[in-house]
């Protein structure tokens, strides 16, 4: 067996939430990602948010595409159903799942390769349809699972681990989500739990398409400074061997900074990113303002974090389609089938 289960032991003194669940009830299998991967910190924040919201873990459906990021749903909410679909297609699978049963909570987890390249279309269309979901992109600017190629969110001029310079412009998923009418748009940093946890909690509470872009450093391909070639060699990126990552892992990057301030974060490779947390008096109900704010700071080389836009009165896809309150997956022949009398009438109309 190549998977690693967590020990079942529960500490009796663990804190419980309103439903009587402890943190452990929101955990999943032990992560097989590289130690220090930003994605693991996001997993921790999802666990924390669900715990704080006192969500029944099994009422969540967690859906992902393919990539290191997309593996993470296995590492939280072990009692809920997960679906690791195909590369870039999480949004359509989630949309279908949501249509089938509007009563569950839908968490979509994707990577920047998954969502900004192969799945760019699906990302866009799920947002514009207003699917009631929390769509999290774990954004590391590279393809982690296929070993370090640029993703479409990588900045122009940035260098890959192999020394290649990126000549293409970057896609800013947050700007696109705003433009497409997402009713909840945020950006955060994997290491900023104090910001990320409430954002995830708010996104889950939002009835409509919530999008959170989370900057999430990749230790394997953002760590040229300290790594050796042999690291690449050993690391096969499959669950069977990648516990070896521990050998070369780093501590995850953590930050905590005040609203309105800029925090420069050094990544594993020594490169720096400037995170700007939006001011407390920022108006998140102004879509146009959010777009301008984002662009203005991007021009200064700063990545804006925080809740950028929210429409508290948002409607979701079910409202647009005017579907019944009862989940479609629980309707049976007695309500779905028009029956033989209707069919006789139909036949008569065709003669």
């Amino acid at each position, binding site marked *: *067996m*190549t*998977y690693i289960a967590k020990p079942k032991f529960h500490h009796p003194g663990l804190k419980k939430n309103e439903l009587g669940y402890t943190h452990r009830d929101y955990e999943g299998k032990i992560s097989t990602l590289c130690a220090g991967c930003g994605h693991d910190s996001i997993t921790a924040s999802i666990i924390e948010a669900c715990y704080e919201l006192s969500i*029944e*873990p*099994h*009422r969540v*459906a967690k*859906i992902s595409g393919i990539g290191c990021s997309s593996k993470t*749903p296995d590492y939280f909410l*072990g*009692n809920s*159903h*997960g*679906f*690791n*679909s*195909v590369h870039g*297609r999480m*949004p*359509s*699978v*989630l*949309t*279908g*799942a*949501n*249509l*089938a*049963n509007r009563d*569950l909570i839908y968490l979509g987890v994707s990577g920047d390769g998954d969502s900004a390249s192969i799945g760019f*279309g*699906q990302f*866009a*269309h799920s947002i514009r*349809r207003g699917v009631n979901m929390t769509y999290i992109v774990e954004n590391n600017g590279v393809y982690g699972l296929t070993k370090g190629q640029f993703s479409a969110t990588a900045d122009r001029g940035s260098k890959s681990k192999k020394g290649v310079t990126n000549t293409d412009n970057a896609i800013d998923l947050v700007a696109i989500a705003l433009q497409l009418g997402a009713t909840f748009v945020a950006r955060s940093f994997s290491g900023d739990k104090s910001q990320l946890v409430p954002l995830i909690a708010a996104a889950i509470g939002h009835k409509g398409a919530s999008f959170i872009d989370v900057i999430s450093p990749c230790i394997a391909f953002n760590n040229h400074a300290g790594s050796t070639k042999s690291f690449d060699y050993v690391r096969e990126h*499959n*669950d*069977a061997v990648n516990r070896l990552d521990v050998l070369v892992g780093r501590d995850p990057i953590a930050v905590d900074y005040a609203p309105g301030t800029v925090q420069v974060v050094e990544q594993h490779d020594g490169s720096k990113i400037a995170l700007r947390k939006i001011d407390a008096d920022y108006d998140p109900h102004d879509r146009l303002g959010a777009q301008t704010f984002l662009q203005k700071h991007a021009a200064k080389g700063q990545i804006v974090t925080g809740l950028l836009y929210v429409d508290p009165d948002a409607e979701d896809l*079910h409202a647009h*389609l*005017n*579907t*019944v309150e009862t989940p*479609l*997956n*629980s*309707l*049976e*022949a007695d309500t*779905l*089938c*028009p*029956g*033989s009398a209707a*069919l006789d009438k*139909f*036949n008569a109309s*065709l*003669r």
Partner: protein
Amino acid sequence: MPDKKPISSVNDFVVRFANVNGSGSASANEMFARAILRHGVPVSPRNIFPSNIQGLPTWYEVRVTEAGHLGARGGVDMMVAMNPQTWDKDIAGIEPGGYLFYDSTKPMPSTKFRDDITVIGVPLTAITNSTYTDPRQRQLFKNIIYLGSLSALLDMDPKLIEQLIGEQYKGKEKLLSSNVHALHLGRDWALQNLKCPIGLRVKKSDKVGDRIFIEGNSAAALGAVYGGATVCAWYPITPSSSVAEAFTAHCKKYRHDPATGQAKYAIVQGEDELASIGIVIGASWNGARAFTATSGPGVSLMTEFIGLSYFAEIPAVIMNIQRAGPSTGMPTRTQQCDIIACAYASHGDTKHVLLFPEDPAEAFEFAAAAFDLAERLQTTIFLMLDLDIGMNHRLCRPLKWDDSKQYDRGKVMTAEMLDEGRDFGRYLDVDGDGIPYRTYPGTHPTKGAYFTRGTSRDRYARYSEEGSVYADNMQRLVRKFETAQDLVPRPLQANAAKPTKYGVIYFGSTSPAMDEAIGLLETRGHQLDRLRIRAFPFHSSVASFLAEHDFVYVVEQNRDSQLRQLIVNENGIDPVRLVPIVHYDGTPITARYIAKAIGDHQDHLKVTPLRKAVS
């Protein structure tokens, strides 16, 4: 007088209308076909249309057939030539002794006609222009005027056409009366100026019975309603778009909660086929019945997801309305050319269930059954229609439904079953039929949750790349496919009047042409047993049929004899004994074609030593 005796036939002839796309002729032509049906005479109409919207040639062919032959016949007895662009080709297509009907407003030089046909000119433009001033009205009513003239020439009862116009424009009195007026303009002109009726005539009969007249796509869409589909995701593509459009219309009629007006369904026009099948798979994973409708290019795009459906065992229903490929091929022409592509869709070792309805009635039944099969087998089910059934009206038996029927939701483990302590392994073969239990998301707080993935895993859904674990799973999938053999519609066999060593296998829309071809072959002295295949995987009776005959013809509408390939592949049979009869120019196969191809081969077999005969 033509130098060939004019064809004389009652209730057995082919009329072809040559029009310009966008001229509004479609509804008049369809009314012509329906009017004949109202005389109690079976018809089999076919649209032959271009893959553009306006300007290009389009044809509508009506086979009037007292004998009830519903396949295309080939040849044209009367051409209604309303398109100058295709004039020469249209004239050339008329059978010797046939009739040409044309707009004689502008005289045509005699070189433009043929000596062996009867030419009937009606000054349609002149009549229309003297009656209507509005250009659109002129265009539309010209069609009704020729319908009126034809009714006189063919001796049709105008009351029956008026009745149809009345039904079409119910509540729109002005339109109704102006259409009836146009009908009589054309009819009266013909009665006063031409020798009516001509040799082709429609006589009242009683051969239609209680049969209905419906397009396969509409029937399949209604099958989805009856089969309990609640989620439909699709992307427009000819010739499948009308499935989703019809599903929308049927749902509006049958699926709204009377109290709240809310919809008991969800229809999403996806951004592409990838999204459409993704939505279907997501919905099915979560316990709803879901489907998509597409055609060849769409299936190509869906293959990655189809592989996921197969391996992760998620139900899905795909209605594939086939058209001529490869690539964009001939988008508005019919073929049965996706057999191999669908049977083995996606990378790796996969096999999928295919259903082959022969007409709209079966399209309805099989569409409904597809959802039971998809949930029972937890895999993709393809409903294989083609343009010929999908987009043409066919006469077929009335649609039937058994009200006592409950949906087969397959093996779903409930919270109660989990509480009873039932062992839940998502990929455990508890019953030996290769089909495991699944749980819906949200079933139980602590039991039954699992992770669905396209990667290899063990019986308890735990990720594993262990070779033996992988092989165990793949073997179970083979077992499941064997189970499917007995769940899908069985082949139907019909034996020749006398014992014979020869057989013929066919499927889908070839059916009516095949029925007729058998008769033609009998008159040539050839006896054949036939087997109509209705599904893949093949039932064991296919192998028996092959064993019982020296030679079996496989008739299909594609170049490479794809069904034959599949039979050879799946039954390990000597290919020499399966003789391909293929037709793939994009028009529906005809009885004449089949009878000639098989007849010639049979004659050859009788006089040639075996080795040469099969080469």
